[in-house]
């Protein structure tokens, strides 16, 4: 009897290796014998050490991640997409699974009984070879680069995930580096560096590291005339040099560099500066070691030729964010990396868009992000908010120039939409004539908002005061900043308005410390983490930052950090707020990644008790900061 469902599955399978090698009648038999499984996101298909199943699996839709566990950590080593095979182990071996297969998104997989498939595969050498190869790659020691399988290397995403593991591998660095003695003359040291094409040189005394000279030292101390080129090198070296032991992992190397804010690490025998120099690790080594690192994504963005390339990068970024969240990397770190890469994507897109225009820009301009993008707090793909400012031009050219930039902005916003940043429903985009204008117009616009702070004005302030320069002529943005800070200085009325606005969302806990949930509408009984948790903190940080004249720190957590420095008497509250903000942002991001939405509404029922306590603790500082605002701006009578 005909089985249309089996035919449908056979038609799907025949597009992929090794099924494409198998004749249709056999394939139909395979399809007939299979079962169709649905996996929810994060549902486990099989665990490491589970007894083997009697089937192997083909992903029909969605994606399944393969991971190995080291200690308590799951290290993702492969992501199987549509048409990929997994769980081949029982085909060749009798022992238990060596990996865990877990759905990374909602997936449908076909389970193909090995009993049915084995005789068919055995008759077909092409199919068998393929299975052997993919088996080898699926079960090899993930640390072992030599057994790289063919199946997996064809999978682009895999290459990246593999670097996830490399992250914890020892870093490759320059062994036996070129060194100079402390008493060598700068000129000769510089000549050595030039001829060897190196950017840094370790300075030793009796083979022990005492300092390092980099291009930067030569630039800042010699080229400026501070020292002459014939002094001893120990006069200009940076000292002490940061020393590390051998066998450092990439992650550790990166951490050390970030921690000490240096670009080079000196490797010594035991890691102290009292043993012999054995190598040097540069920032470059770290970057090269990890293809999946943010730096590489940045570089890829800069080299992208098409919007679709950028889209792929944004998709990789999403993976990176998910992995980072899974690994409990501090959210602030993730935020700043994501912000940088988002900006790099945008920069590149603008460059590409300008190339597509018939003429180069007729005036200097700057593109800036506003709202959460401006604050670099956008981890999930939410909508775009941006604006454009161009330099003042003569009246008769104004229309022409504005039209040019509007056209450019349309190209850019369209591109962004294609990449995955949805259009802003409120049309807060540079393609809107209202938000694409000359620097004088912008200044007047901000003045208007500040001098006549009505409800709309305040709303605009909350959006536009979080701006972040992305592309073009930064001085244009600075001009606007000058106006903002000039106009707001001692402007009590304005601060009263903004303060009242910041207080409109009180801390979301009821009298008995229970959560206040949405009482009606589509999101009934869920908790609006954005409006009730994040917005009050964001608003408070913005208000206080403007009042304390803190510039260029648009990220809410940074703002609180800076505030804590400026007002030690309130430092405890500010620090608590900064932390609370990061906790809430993490909740939202995890929720958003889980449900593939903006993560705004938390389902309290799904939270563990611990999470609920964490969440409640994060709300505590909201009341405190609101108290500060109330007193500072004397709002008790205002509202």
């Amino acid at each position, binding site marked *: *009897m*005909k*089985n*249309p*469902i*089996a035919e*449908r*599955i056979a038609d799907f399978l025949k597009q992929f290796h090794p099924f494409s090698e198998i004749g249709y009648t056999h394939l139909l038999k395979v*399809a*007939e*014998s*299979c*079962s*169709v*499984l*649905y996996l*929810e996101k994060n549902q486990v298909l099989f665990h490491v050490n589970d007894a083997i199943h009697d089937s192997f699996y083909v992903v029909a*839709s969605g994606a399944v991640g393969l991971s190995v566990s080291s200690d308590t950590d799951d290290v993702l080593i492969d992501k199987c997409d549509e048409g990929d095979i997994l769980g081949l182990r029982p085909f060749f071996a009798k022992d238990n699974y060596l990996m865990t297969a877990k759905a990374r998104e*909602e997936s*449908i997989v076909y*389970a193909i009984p090995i009993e049915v498939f084995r005789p068919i595969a055995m008759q077909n050498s092409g199919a068998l070879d393929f299975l052997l190869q993919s088996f080898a790659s699926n079960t090899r020691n993930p640390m072992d680069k030599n057994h790289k399988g063919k199946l997996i290397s064809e999978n682009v995403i895999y290459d990246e995930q593999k670097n996830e593991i490399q992250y914890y591998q020892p870093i490759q660095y320059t062994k036996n580096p070129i060194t100079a003695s402390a008493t060598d003359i700068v000129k000769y040291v510089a000549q050595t560096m030039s001829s060897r094409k190196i950017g840094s040189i370790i300075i030793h005394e009796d083979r022990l590291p005492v300092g390092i000279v980099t291009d930067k030292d030569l630039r800042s101390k010699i080229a400026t005339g501070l020292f002459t080129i014939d002094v001893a090198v120990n006069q200009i070296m940076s000292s002490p040099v940061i020393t590390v032991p051998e066998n450092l992992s990439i992650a550790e190397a990166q951490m050390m560099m970030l921690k000490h804010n240096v670009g080079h690490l000196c490797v010594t025998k035991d890691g102290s500066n009292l043993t012999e120099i054995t190598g040097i690790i540069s920032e470059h080594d770290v970057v090269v070691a990890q293809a999946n690192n943010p730096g590489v994504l940045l570089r890829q963005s800069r080299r992208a030729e098409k919007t679709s390339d950028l889209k792929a990068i944004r998709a990789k970024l999403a993976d990176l964010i998910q992995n980072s969240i899974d690994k409990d990397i501090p959210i602030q770190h993730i935020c700043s990396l994501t912000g940088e890469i988002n900006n790099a994507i945008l920069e590149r897109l603008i460059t590409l868009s300008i190339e597509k225009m018939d003429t180069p820009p007729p005036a200097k301009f700057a593109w800036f992000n506003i709202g959460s993008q401006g604050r670099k707090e956008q981890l999930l793909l939410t909508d775009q908010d941006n604006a454009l400012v161009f330099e003042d031009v003569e009246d008769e050219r104004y229309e022409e120039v504005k039209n040019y930039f509007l056209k450019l902005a349309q190209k850019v916003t369209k591109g962004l939409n294609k990449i995955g940043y949805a259009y802003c429903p409120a049309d807060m985009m540079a393609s809107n004539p209202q938000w694409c204008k000359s620097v004088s117009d912008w200044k007047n616009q901000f003045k208007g908002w500040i001098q006549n702070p009505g409800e709309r004005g305040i709303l605009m302030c909350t959006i536009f005061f979080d701006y972040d320069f992305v592309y073009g002529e930064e001085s244009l943005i600075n001009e606007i900043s000058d106006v903002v800070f000039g106009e707001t200085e001692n402007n009590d009325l304005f601060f009263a308005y903004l303060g009242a606005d910041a207080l409109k969302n009180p801390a979301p806990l009821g009298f008995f410390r229970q959560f206040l949930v949405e009482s009606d509408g589509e999101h009934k009984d869920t908790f609006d983490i954005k409006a009730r948790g994040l917005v009050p903190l964001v608003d408070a940080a913005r208000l206080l930052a403007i009042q304390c004249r803190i510039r260029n720190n648009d990220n809410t957590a940074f703002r609180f950090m800076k505030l804590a420095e400026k007002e030690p008497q309130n430092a405890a509250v500010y620090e608590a707020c900064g932390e609370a903000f990061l906790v809430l942002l993490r909740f939202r991001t995890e929720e958003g990644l889980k449900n593939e939405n903006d993560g705004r509404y938390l389902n309290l029922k799904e939270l563990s008790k611990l999470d609920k306590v964490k969440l409640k603790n994060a709300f505590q500082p909201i009341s405190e900061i609101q108290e500060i605002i109330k007193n500072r701006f004397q709002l008790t009578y205002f509202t």
Partner: protein
Amino acid sequence: MSWSWLKKIQKEAPKFWEDYLASFHVNDETKRYVVFDCETTGLDIKKDRILSIGAVAIVDGQIKVQDSLTLFVQQDIFKAESVPIHGILKEGQEEKVVEAEAAIQFLDYIKNATLVAHHANFDIEMINQALNRLDLGRLKNQYMDTDIMYQKLKYYPEDQHTSLDELCEVFKVKKSDRHTASGDAFITALIFLKLKKKLDI
């Protein structure tokens, strides 16, 4: 006349019907669902007829492709206007069976499984009408409706209905074989699996 129902009872029921009824007394270890869809000549339960039935079983949360059924029914009544939708011609390529044979195969296939369909009432009523024409009783199986399951998931009111196409959109199921009975049954089965998980049934 009004006593004719008595005759029906007295008349000995055919073997396949007895088997079907007997299957409900068997205690199975695993629960079996049969997801099915009928393509019909129209929406009038009395006048219209079943053109084809597609069905597939779900056991242990897995769609068993082998455990499926596709039937094309020979037509006495034939409406030309429904051909463009289903692509089933009166004298089409498919091997067809008469309605009685279809009923026998269908009952033998479903046994005591829980039936699942989208807008199940209609499909079940179409089968019941066919059984009625064979002087048999109504289907005894429990059944579930993916439309109602979705209502429950979304807290929709009872009168808010969702089409299979809409559910495909919501659950990102490819609609490649829409409007063949087997294709729709398979799509419904995928949606059913998702709903079942989400509703935690």
